[in-house]
C-alpha cells in the first residue's frame, strides 16, 4: 500500500517534470512555433497546391539559405546580427557587374565572380570589423547604419561616377545619358542559371539520394566511432535521422510511380551542394582553434583577452568570413534571379536574412545551422503564402505584402526586445543572488 502511494507520487513528479520540460520547450521556441502555425494557416487560406508551394519554397531555399548562413559566425563571436552583410552582397554585385560587362557566361563567369568578389569582400569586411570594434556593445545598430551608409557610397559609385569620372563603355548596361548603370541589368549574357543548370534532378530522385547519403553519413560516423562509447543523445539523434529519411525515401519511391506534379520539380544539385559545403565549412571552422577562439571571444571578451586571445583581431576575422560568405551568397542569389536590380537587390538582404534566422529560433547570441535552414523555410513560407492569403481573407493582395514586411520588421524588433529584456532580468537576478 505504502509502496503504491510512493509510486504514484513519483509518477506525479515525473508528469510535473515532463510538463515543465514541455513548457520550457514551448517558451524557448515560441517565435518559431508562432510562425510555423502562421505559415500553415496562411498556406491553407492561400489556396495554393502543395507541389506548387513546395517548388516555390525550394527555389527560395536554394536562393536565400547561403545569405542566412553568413550570419552565424558573427553571432557566435558575440557581435550580434551582422546587418552589414549588405556590404558583402555589394561586393558580390560589383563582381557580377564586372563579369556581365565582360560577357563571360556560364560556370566560368560564376567562378570568376566568386574569385573577384573575395578581395572586395575582404576589404569591406576588414573595414566593417574595424568599425564594429570601435562600437563595441552597439555593433548591431552600427552595422545597420553602416549598411545604409555603404548603400549611399554604392549609389554614388554606380549612379554618378561610373561612366562619368570613371570611364565605362557599355550601351546595354549604362543609362542613355552615358553616366550611371541602369536600374536593372539582365544577366542572361553572364551568370544566369550558371550553377543551377549544371545538374538538376527531379525532387523524388533528389530526396532519395539525400536519404541514401544521410544513411551513409550516419553509418560512417558510427563506424569511425565504434571504439568510443557514444553519447545517448547522439545515438537518439542518429536514430531520428534514419527514421526521417526512411520516410522521405519511401515517399519519393511512391511519388516516382505516380504522375504527381512533384515529379516536375527540379532541384539544382550544384547549388544545393554549395549550400551544404557552407554548412560543413561553418561546422568545421567551429571545431578548429580559430573557431574556439571565436566562441571564447563571443562568450566573454574580457576573459578571452586576459588569456591572450587578440579579441579585436578575431572579431575582424569573423566579420570578414561573414562578408565573403555574403558576397558568394548574393552571387548565387543573382544567378538564380537572372536579373540584377542594380540599386535594390542588396538593400533588404540584411533584414531578410536576419529575420529568417530569428524566426528559426536563433537569438542575438546563439545561432545554429539548423535554425538558419528552418528559419529560411518558415520565413519564405510566409513570403509565399501571405499575398494570396491576404487576398483571400481580406480581398486585397497588398495587405498580405504589407503584412510580410510587418512580419520581417516585427520579428526582428520583438526578438531584439526579448533578448534585451531577458538580459535585464538576468542582471537583476544576479544582483539579488
Amino acid at each position, binding site marked *: 500500500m505504502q509502496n503504491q502511494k510512493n509510486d504514484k507520487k513519483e509518477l506525479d513528479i515525473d508528469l510535473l517534470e515532463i510538463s515543465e520540460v514541455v513548457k520550457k520547450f514551448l517558451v524557448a521556441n515560441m517565435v518559431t512555433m508562432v510562425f510555423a502555425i502562421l505559415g500553415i494557416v496562411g498556406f491553407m487560406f492561400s489556396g495554393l497546391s502543395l507541389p506548387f508551394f513546395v517548388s516555390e519554397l525550394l527555389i527560395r531555399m536554394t536562393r536565400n539559405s547561403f545569405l542566412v548562413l553568413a550570419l552565424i559566425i558573427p553571432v557566435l563571436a558575440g557581435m550580434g546580427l551582422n546587418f552589414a552583410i549588405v556590404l558583402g552582397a555589394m561586393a558580390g554585385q560589383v563582381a557580377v557587374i564586372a563579369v556581365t560587362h565582360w560577357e563571360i557566361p556560364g560556370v566560368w563567369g560564376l567562378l570568376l565572380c566568386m574569385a573577384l568578389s573575395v578581395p572586395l569582400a575582404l576589404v569591406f569586411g576588414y573595414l566593417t570589423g574595424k568599425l564594429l570594434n570601435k562600437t563595441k556593445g552597439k555593433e548591431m545598430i552600427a552595422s545597420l547604419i553602416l549598411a545604409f551608409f555603404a548603400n549611399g557610397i554604392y549609389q554614388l559609385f554606380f549612379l554618378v561616377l561610373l561612366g562619368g569620372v570613371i570611364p565605362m563603355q557599355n550601351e546595354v548596361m549604362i543609362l542613355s545619358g552615358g553616366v550611371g548603370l541602369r536600374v536593372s541589368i539582365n544577366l542572361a549574357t553572364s551568370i544566369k542559371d550558371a550553377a543551377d543548370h549544371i545538374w538538376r534532378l527531379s525532387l523524388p530522385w533528389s530526396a532519395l539520394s539525400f536519404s541514401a547519403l544521410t544513411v551513409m553519413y550516419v553509418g560512417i560516423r558510427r563506424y569511425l566511432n565504434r571504439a568510443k562509447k557514444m553519447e545517448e543523445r547522439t545515438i537518439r539523434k542518429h536514430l531520428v535521422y534514419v527514421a526521417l529519411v526512411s520516410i522521405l525515401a519511401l515517399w519519393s519511391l511512391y511519388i516516382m510511380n505516380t504522375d504527381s506534379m512533384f515529379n516536375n520539380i527540379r532541384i539544382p544539385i550544384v547549388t544545393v551542394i554549395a549550400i551544404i559545403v557552407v554548412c560543413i565549412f561553418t561546422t*568545421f*571552422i567551429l*571545431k*578548429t*582553434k*580559430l573557431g*574556439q*577562439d571565436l*566562441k*571564447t571571444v563571443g*562568450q*566573454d571578451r574580457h*576573459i*578571452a583577452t*586576459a*588569456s*591572450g*586571445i587578440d579579441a579585436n583581431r578575431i572579431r575582424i576575422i569573423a566579420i570578414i568570413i561573414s562578408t565573403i560568405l555574403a558576397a558568394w551568397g548574393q552571387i548565387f542569389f543573382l544567378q538564380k534571379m537572372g536579373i540584377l536590380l542594380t540599386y535594390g537587390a542588396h538593400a533588404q538582404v540584411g533584414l531578410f536574412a536576419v529575420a529568417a534566422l530569428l524566426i528559426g529560433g536563433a537569438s542575438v547570441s546563439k545561432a545554429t545551422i539548423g535554425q538558419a535552414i528552418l528559419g529560411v523555410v518558415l520565413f519564405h513560407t510566409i513570403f509565399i503564402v501571405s499575398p494570396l492569403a491576404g487576398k483571400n481573407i481580406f480581398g486585397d493582395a497588398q495587405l498580405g505584402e504589407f503584412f510580410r514586411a510587418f512580419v520581417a520588421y516585427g520579428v526582428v524588433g520583438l526578438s531584439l526586445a526579448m533578448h534585451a529584456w531577458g538580459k535585464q532580468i538576468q542582471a537583476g537576478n*544576479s*544582483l*539579488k*543572488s
Partner: protein
Amino acid sequence: MENLEYVLQMKNISKDYYGNCVLKDINLSVKAGEIHAILGENGAGKSTLMNILFGMTVIHSTGGFDGEIMLEGKNINIKSPQEALELGIGMVHQEFMLIPGYSVTENVKLNREITKRNFVSRIFGEKLETLDLKEMAKDTRKALDTLDMDIDEWTRVEGIPVGYMQFIEIAREIDKKNIKLLVFDEPTAVLTESEAANLLTAMQKIKESGIAILFITHRLDEVMEVADNITMLRDGELVAQKKSDETNVIELAELMVGRKVEKIVREKRDEKANRKTILEVKDLRVMMSGEEVKGIDLKIEEGEILGIGGLAGQGKIGIANGIMGIYPVSGDIILKGEKLKLNSPKDSLERKIAFVSEDRRGVGLLLDTSIEINIVVTAMQIKKTFIRNFVLFTQINQKRIKEHTLKMIKMLDIRCRNEKQLIKKLSGGNQQKICIARALTLAPDVLLVSEPTRGIDVGAKKIVLETLVRLNRDLGMTIVMTSSELAELRSVCDRIVIISGGKIEGELKPDSNDTDFGLMMAGEYKKIHSRGDEQS
C-alpha cells in the same frame, strides 16, 4: 650560485606613481616547494607588487619600477602578463576567469588548446587545425586528479558550485607544463569554510609537486596553517619577514595595523552624558554584490561620529547603501523610534538622512553638469526648495540657487572658477566637497559618508576630515563614516565598529590597541577570544 635554490627573487623593488611612493625597497625570495604568504591591508602594496611581477601595463605606462626580479637565478624583465605566463608564472584569480558556457576541459585548456593537423590547416596555417578534444580531456583529467577532483571533465562550468570553480582555475595553472610559481590572489575570499579547507589541502599538494606558491591573503589563520614563510607589507613598506612557526596570529595582527595615529584636533566627547539613540538597525542584510551585509545590529547615538571599518569586500560599504535603500535590503531601520521604509532612497532622504557615496564619480556626481545643479538637485527633488511654483508648472529659482551655491563654496572652501563650472573639471578633493555640500543642503540629522578621502590628495584629505569634525561639533550632526583607512577612522571617530564577513566583528575606541584592530580587521578577533574563553 646559491641563488639557484630560489625560484623567485625580487630585490629592492620600489615603485612610485607620479612621485607618490607606493612600494619601497621590497625584498622577497621564494624557494621551490614553498608556500610564501604576503600579508597586508588594502593599499599595503600587495597588488602593485603582483602587477610588477606580471609586467602589467599599469606599471610600464607609469614609468616602470626600480629593482630587479630573478627567476631561477636569471635576471628577467617581464613586459606583459603573456610573457610572465610563458616564463612559468601563473595566477589564480580572485574573480574567476572561467567561461560558463564551456566544459571544464575547454576552460582548463583556454587558449592552450591541443590541436591536430588536417588538410585545410596544411594550406591555411595552424589556426585552422582541429581541436584534439581527446588529448585535451586527458590532460585535464590528469590535472583534476592531482587536485583530487572527481568532477567529470566534460561538465559545463555553468551551474557547478563556486568552490569547484576555484579548483578549475588551479587545474588550468598546474596543467601548464613549465609552471614554476603560482600566485593565489585572495583565493578563499568567495569560498565557504569547508571549500577553503579543501583549497588549502590542494595548495599543500601543489607545493609537494615542487611548485612555489605566493599566497596573497588577509586571513591570518589560513596563513598560519599552510604558509612556510610570511612577508608583511604595510603602506608600501616591508615590515617583517617571518617563518610561520616562529610567529602567531596576534603578532601578525599587530604588525598588519600598527602605525601612528594623527589625531585631528577635537575635544573629547563627554563620555558620561546620557545620549539618545538616533538611528538603529536590526538584522540589517544588504544584497550588494562584493560588499554584502549579512545581518548587523547597530545603534548610532545622536551627535557622535561613528566609524565603520574593515577590509575591502567584507561588507562595510553595504551598510550605508542599505540604510539609504540603494541596494536590496531587509531587516529593520529605525530612525528616532520610527521604522524607515526599506528600499526607498526617497523615504530615507525625506526623513533627513543624507549620503555621500563611496563611488564619487560613478554615483556621487553629475560630471557633465554645473556645480550649482550638483549641489541643489537632491534638495530640489526631496524638499522642493530652489523652485518657483507657477500653479501649472515649476521653474528653477536661479537666484536662490546661486546664493546658496556661493555660500557653500565659501563655507567648504571649494576651489573653482565659478558656480557654473562643470564638475568634471574640478579636482578630486573639490569634487568630494561638492558631494558633502549637496548632503548639507538637505540639512540632515544623520550624515552617512563613505570613503570620504578615497583618491584625493593629502591636503584635501585633511580639509575633508576637518569639515566633518566641524559639522559634528558645531552643528551637532550625527555622522557615520565608512572608510578603508583605519588611521583616518581613528583620527576623527568617537567609536569604531569593524566589519568582517558581512557581520560586526567588534567595537573599539580610537585609542584601543593595534592588536585588537588587526585581529578584528582580519576577522580573527572573535575566534581567538572564544578560544580563550574555552581555555579559561
